[in-house]
């Protein structure tokens, strides 16, 4: 099978991050891949990705502002005709840098918040970053760049949605991403403390949908469904190694940011002799779950197999030890009880990324 065209490159340029989010979905073993490619390596990846068909690039991390060559990378992506997105915590806030990035062709900035006020950043990111975040978002708006406000939702902040919507409106955001936490990496470690109640979710969804209606044409309100409370799994990455190609800090090419947790697969790194195009087209790990030939029952004969692609491979591996099984988030999975059980195991314990266990 020939490889499909990836439209989006997720350039995860560093794992360094000033925050310590309890819902961070980077693998807890991120330090194994934390060595960072050089500027030239990344420029080569951008050139090759453009040839491969990429038209959208997300600069993300970790905190992409931690790399001082971000400007050069944005400039190159823009020169290759890509739409450039910066996914940032806004920390450290530096107006001159944002101005420089805008001048080099940055199109869109997504700034993360932890809830409706400063206390949320302290509680869920162990950081006093709130004012810097506000300043970053206001600067993005001043510079006439597109602004997305992103909030990862969980038990601790789902009830803050009205305040979050008001915040996004006040900041002049064009998009508000209300993303229910996905349980990878640190978020998986903290699942018992992050899992919401279904009553919370219902209330939040109603508020989000009402805002979506009210703000239509002005602000796009996206409510990313929580897969632990859905009948069917989410269409993870729109299918494995299909529309998205991701490169992590050390140059490993993966289908999603959590994929290195699937230790039964071996992903390859780009190098002077191995391009991202070669890897995309020939890597056995990327081919492993493309299309539907790999699918087990009940996916194989399911009419939704082209809708959700069997769900999330990382979740199947993490919960069931086999990445080739149906995502247990699916109610049709014979192992769905792995999800149902989790909903009944609340805890109050948090593991903060990059902090000693407390």
């Amino acid at each position, binding site marked *: 099978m020939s490889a499909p065209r990836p*439209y989006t490159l997720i350039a995860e340029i560093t794992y360094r991050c000033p925050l310590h989010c309890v819902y961070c979905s980077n693998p807890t073993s991120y330090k194994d891949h934390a060595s960072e490619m050089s500027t030239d390596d990344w420029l080569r990846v951008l050139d090759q990705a453009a040839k491969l068909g990429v038209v*959208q690039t997300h600069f993300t991390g970790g905190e992409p502002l931690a790399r001082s060559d971000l400007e050069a990378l944005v400039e190159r992506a823009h020169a290759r005709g890509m739409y450039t997105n910066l996914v940032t915590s806004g920390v450290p806030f530096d107006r001159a840098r944002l101005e420089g990035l805008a001048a080099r062709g940055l*199109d*869109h900035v*997504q700034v993360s918040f932890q809830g409706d006020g400063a206390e949320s950043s302290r509680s869920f990111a162990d950081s006093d970053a709130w004012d810097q975040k506000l300043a970053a978002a206001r600067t993005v708006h001043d510079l006439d760049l597109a602004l997305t406000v992103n909030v990862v939702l969980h038990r601790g902040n789902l009830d803050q949605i009205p305040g979050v919507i008001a915040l996004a409106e006040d900041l002049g955001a064009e998009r508000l991403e209300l993303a229910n936490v996905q349980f990878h990496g640190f978020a998986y470690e903290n699942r018992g403390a992050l899992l919401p109640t279904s009553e919370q979710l219902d209330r939040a969804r109603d508020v989000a949908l009402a805002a979506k209606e009210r703000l239509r*044409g002005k*602000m796009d309100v996206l409510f990313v469904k929580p897969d632990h409370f859905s009948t069917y799994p989410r269409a993870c990455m729109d299918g494995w190694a299909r529309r998205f190609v991701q490169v992590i800090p050390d140059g490993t090419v993966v289908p999603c940011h959590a994929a290195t947790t699937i230790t039964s697969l071996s992903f390859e790194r780009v190098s002077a002799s191995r391009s991202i195009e070669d890897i995309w087209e020939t890597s056995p790990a990327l081919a492993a779950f493309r299309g539907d030939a790999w699918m087990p029952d009940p996916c194989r004969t399911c009419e939704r197999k082209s809708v959700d692609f069997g769900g999330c491979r990382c979740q199947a591996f993490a919960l069931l030890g086999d990445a080739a099984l149906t995502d247990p988030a699916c109610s049709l999975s014979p192992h769905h009880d792995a999800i149902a059980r989790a909903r009944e195991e609340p805890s109050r314990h948090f593991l903060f990324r990059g902090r000693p266990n407390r």
Partner: protein
Amino acid sequence: MSATHPKLARRARLRFDEIEKKHMLLYPERGLVLNESAAAIVELCDGTRSEVEIVEALAAKTDTPRERVAADVRELVARLSDKGLVE
């Protein structure tokens, strides 16, 4: 709700894709592949023309009946303003 003089939002970029030989409309984290007639409409959404003038310009260029062009323009402009891509 559609603007009287539709204008592509600053956050949206129209580009020609050499691989598929089609226009694409790119916006934050998303993109739309446009067919030829949609691309022709979007190209005229520059804020200097009214919807009626866009219809006139396109009807003059093609053999498509005016009502059909008008319906296409109305539908696309409404769809794109809903997404905040046309102001």
